[in-house]
């Protein structure tokens, strides 16, 4: 291993601690810390994201029906549920890729529903988004994909943006792919670049819309490892829509189960997975395990 690493020194820094035992230990410690502080979130501060009575209807088809959800700063929330349950739509409402039909969404105590165009643009700088289909810009290299938001939106200088982009690419283990264009990368690599692109903007909140659903099973692990690293070490608030139960169980501070446009159940991963309160949750967990 060390001899190999010497050949390509740029990407030497592993995203995940080389020894898996150490990683697990660290994760557990972090989860424990968070569980302690979680309590504090709920009692004290305002939630960073507050969803109140959110409704969304696509041409007569109700997709979200009175969804209520609070997310606290630094919290990792994993949203589970069968397809068509409205998880993605809820996520997309948070950064207004979908306009809510009714209800309120507050980010940092600020109402965003019904806000002006310029405010929406401003709001989105605070919200990073990772898509199921990656949506990398195919005409730009991996590096340029990570730089373009910084230069165009944050108005950073080119060198500064490049340094940040390289740092983020290094973090997702793709510094040596900086000059490759998306079609030349595997799906897993593309998704990691997409994560780097979102993280490079240093948003307060990072939204993941089924980030591993379009990937082959063997590529999922690499992406999840990157997400784990972010969850443990970045301090960002993350709302993750996924079908990865293992990830939810290991990383989430809270699991939210949705079905038919309604939040059915939520709680600590251990509670929801091991002692689901609702019949639907039980059915869902039974069907996938």
């Amino acid at each position, binding site marked *: 291993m060390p001899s190999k690493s010497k050949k390509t020194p740029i990407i030497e820094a592993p*995203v995940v601690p080389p020894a898996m035992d150490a990683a697990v230990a660290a994760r557990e410690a972090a989860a424990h810390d968070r569980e302690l502080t979680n309590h504090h979130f709920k009692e004290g501060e305002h939630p960073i994201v507050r969803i109140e009575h959110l409704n969304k209807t696509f041409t007569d088809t109700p997709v979200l029906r009175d969804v209520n959800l609070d997310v606290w700063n630094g919290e990792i929330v994993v949203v589970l549920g069968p397809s068509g349950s409205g998880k993605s739509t809820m996520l997309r409402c948070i950064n207004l890729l979908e306009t809510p039909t009714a209800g309120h969404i507050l980010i940092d105590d600020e109402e965003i529903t019904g806000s002006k165009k310029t405010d929406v643009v401003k709001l989105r700088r605070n919200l990073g988004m990772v898509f199921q289909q990656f949506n990398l810009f195919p005409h730009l290299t991996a590096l340029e994909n990570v730089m373009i938001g910084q230069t165009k939106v944050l108005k950073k200088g080119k060198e500064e943006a490049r340094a940040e982009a390289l740092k983020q690419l290094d973090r997702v283990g793709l510094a040596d792919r900086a000059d490759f*264009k998306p079609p030349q990368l595997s*799906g897993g690599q593309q998704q990691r670049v997409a994560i780097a692109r979102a993280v490079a903007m240093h948003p307060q909140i990072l939204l993941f819309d089924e980030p591993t659903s379009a990937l082959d099973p*063997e590529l999922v*692990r690499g992406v999840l490892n990157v997400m784990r690293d972010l969850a443990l070490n970045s301090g960002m608030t993350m709302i993750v829509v996924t079908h990865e139960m293992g990830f939810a169980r290991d990383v989430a501070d809270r699991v939210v189960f949705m079905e038919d446009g309604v939040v059915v159940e939520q709680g600590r991963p251990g509670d929801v997975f091991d002692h689901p309160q609702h019949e639907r949750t039980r059915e869902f967990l039974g069907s996938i395990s």
Partner: protein
Amino acid sequence: MQELASRKPHPGGLVAGALALALALVLGGCGSATSSSSTGLDSSGITTAADAGEVVVKSATARPNEDGGSSVFGGQETRLTWEGTVNVDSGITEVTLALPDDATFDGSTTRVTVLDGLKRVNIDSTTSTSGNTITIKFAEAIPSGSLLRLEVTNMKFPTKGGSYSVTGTYVTGTGEKAELDASPKIKITELTTTQAIVNWLDGQAWVSAWNSVPFLNMFFKPQLLVTSFPSLFSGWILCLIIILVAFPFGILLGLVFAFMRISKHRWVRAIAAIYVNLLRGTPLFLQIYIAFFGLPMVGINMDNNILGIIVVAINSSAYQAEIYRAGIQSIPKGQYEAATSLGMTYRQTMTSIILPQTVRRVLPTVTSDFITSYKDTSLLSSVGVMELMMFSKNLTTVSGNITPYIAAAIYYLIITLPLIKVVGIIEKRLSADENGEGPRPKDDDMETEDEFEAPAADEKAKPSAFQALTAPFRAHTLSDGGVEDAI
């Protein structure tokens, strides 16, 4: 004087020759009589001394040797005709004509005509040539007062062209040598490569054989093909100027109308739709007629070429508007979402993300449109724009042969064939780009991510991962509804 009068009824060559000799003797004997008799022949009215005199050079001309033209080409066989009046008492026995160095009399044949008044006098002569000089010796002296005409066939003027005088010398009956006056200048056109090739072709047996086939002669006459190219050249250049000026305007106008077509405001979309549909729904030919005949009637007059450029640009812009609109709309919705999620404004999204991708996608179609518009400039010939089609039409009318049209076709193809090839290359490259071909990390490099996934697994995943990526793209090419799939 009596002798002069008595000579007239005798036309016979031998008789005339004898009489001419007699006249020469008479004239040599009495100079005063000569001057009076020579006035009828020589407008300059030179009076000559008893034993001297001069040869008055009247003219020197060359027969045009251009195919169907009036130019005299240098370096190509022609006939030099030189005329002078002999005003030398003792007559002349020898004439040497000279031209500049590059001319040649070698291989020529000379016909000598001596006229005494209207009577032809036969005098034997021997001709010798030496490069740019030719010497004619007469068996007997040409008597004073006669007109000497030398026709040198198959001689050549200098290749480089210019204006040349024929100079030379003559020898009098008494053996004196004198200079000839320089003749009026003969204008020689430089022999063009084209003409040289035509000359060469004229002499080729296979060309004659080729041209003996009516079809080949009518459509592919080699000589005409060769002369057509330079004749059509300026028309071709005008074609290129028209399209190269018109097309960029077409691009700009097309982009403007493309954005109008996808505007949020209904009336903006309506205006763009009317513009695009009217122009795409009517023939360019009709649009040209309306512009060229309609505008002058309302007092708008402008240069034909400029109006031609405007019409082509406007027509092309309608087609390009549709190309750009379709191109912009073919970019997956996910691209807009990714850009706006980064906090980009609509303008930033368009300029940095959508348009660069659109350009790549529409490049083949736009190039095809360029080819179409370039060919369509030919329609401007109907309203008198002097472009390629116009020139070839004129040339065909003059020559009664279709070959100039074939030459025009070749001029069009010089541009269109490579562009068609370019379109193919761009299309191939684009599809290669979208299919993820091109340099990929080798297995050697994959070690760097072994913390995440096995290299082999990564390699295996390529096809399906790519399918996932291009799913929205492919959906789009099938139906517009594909946009929604990405949601």
